[in-house]
């Protein structure tokens, strides 16, 4: 069975991700312990909260180096969810300029409405439109709705790292990926059937 380390860095709703991973056939463990993270076949970095505070927590728990080792060197499949996706960026600006994990070249900035109807935070169901094929979205048609709740977004530098985009605030990157590193701005654990399909696809990597 796939052993999934859900990284606990002290600021989010981990229960629902744990339940969703179980539901999708994985064996989740919520942890910040090096030993458990090293044993995992898959790593999920969840996230709710502010970029600055999140990086601080990852640093203080000694998780930045450990995650880099497991993901970049050991090539363990990695999925960042919401803030967990944003933390992949080189730099974030929520709560002051902060260095991110830097695995995806880009910056995390606040969404800017382009129409009066666009309200921030972007909360609710919106379409994920693919720009390139990705194993995470196997058996899911492009343009389906997933659940978003966020005010910031990752602006990628490299086009080939943008997997999908969503039409809001002029269009933002909703999925990124490089090698076995993926980030989704939406919440698969709250996106019901299609969200679970994303998690199942991730576990199949």
């Amino acid at each position, binding site marked *: 069975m796939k052993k999934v380390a859900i990284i606990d860095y002290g600021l989010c709703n981990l229960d*629902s991700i744990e339940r969703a991973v179980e539901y999708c056939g994985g064996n989740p463990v919520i942890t910040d312990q090096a030993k458990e993270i090293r044993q995992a076949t898959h790593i999920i970095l969840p996230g709710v909260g502010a970029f600055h505070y999140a990086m601080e927590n990852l640093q203080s728990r000694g998780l930045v180096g450990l995650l880099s080792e497991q993901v970049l060197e050991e090539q363990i499949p990695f999925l960042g969810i919401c803030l967990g996706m944003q933390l992949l960026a080189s730099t974030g600006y929520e709560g002051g300029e902060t260095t991110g994990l830097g695995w995806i070249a880009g910056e995390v900035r606040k969404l800017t409405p382009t129409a009066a109807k666009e309200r921030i935070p972007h*909360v609710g169901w919106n379409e994920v439109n693919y720009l390139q094929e990705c194993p995470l979205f196997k058996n899911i048609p492009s343009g389906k709705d997933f659940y978003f*709740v966020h005010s910031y977004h990752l602006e990628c530098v490299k086009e080939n790292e943008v997997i999908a985009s969503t039409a809001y605030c002029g269009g933002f990157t909703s999925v990124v990926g490089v090698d076995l590193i993926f980030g989704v701005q939406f919440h698969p654990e709250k996106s019901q059937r299609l969200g679970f399909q994303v998690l199942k696809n991730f576990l199949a990597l």
Partner: protein
Amino acid sequence: MIKVRVIPTLLFKDFGLVKGVAFDSWRRVGSAMQAIKVYNLREVDELVFLDISATAAGRCPDFETVDDLADECFMPMTVGGGVRTLEDVRRLLQVGADKVAINTAAAEDPDLIRQIAEKFGSQCVVVSIDVKHHGNGAYEVYTHCGTRATGLDPVAFAKQMEEAGAGEILLTSIDRDGTMTGYDVQLTRQVSEAISITVIASGGAGNYDHMADVLRHGKASDVAAASIFHFTQQTPLEAKHYLAQCGFRMRFS
């Protein structure tokens, strides 16, 4: 394009779900767990779960109950009732709430909203504003489950909450609550036009047309409803089909 959410509201009191009229005359309407399981199957957009006796009883949220419910809830869930401190918020998020709704404490201590937004992000802060319409045409914000007047004007208060960092406003008309005579469109429009965060209209839905009305004329982003789903044959899915026919963008999985 973002979709309009149709959000069932579950009101929790003591051990089960209730629904009243104008925040009074509560009737039992079944178990919370049962409701969540049904809504899971029907792929409802989102749920609001409010423990309406917590503040009155002077107690904190019932974390154990929320934990049990959240474990079964595979849709986004906003949880409110008795939230007064950063620690309450942290624990609710920890046991599985996606967002936290704050009513009384937001009016009493607006700085709490700023602190929560700073620590956990605006996206998890829903300020729930309950409003009464006075005979002279004026609106007033009430707290403590609609029992205590605050002297606050809902538009000014909503603006203040937006500035403090609220992510969404759940705007409930106390007068319309449970009457199934339609949302307070005027109130909703006033608040919605004054702020740039999402306004969820609540209180008064009796049919799908009411929802279309408050979305179109009240400028609400989304609609919440309770009685219509508890006491009539109408369902969130039918509501979405109806609204889609009216030209609103809805989600169908």
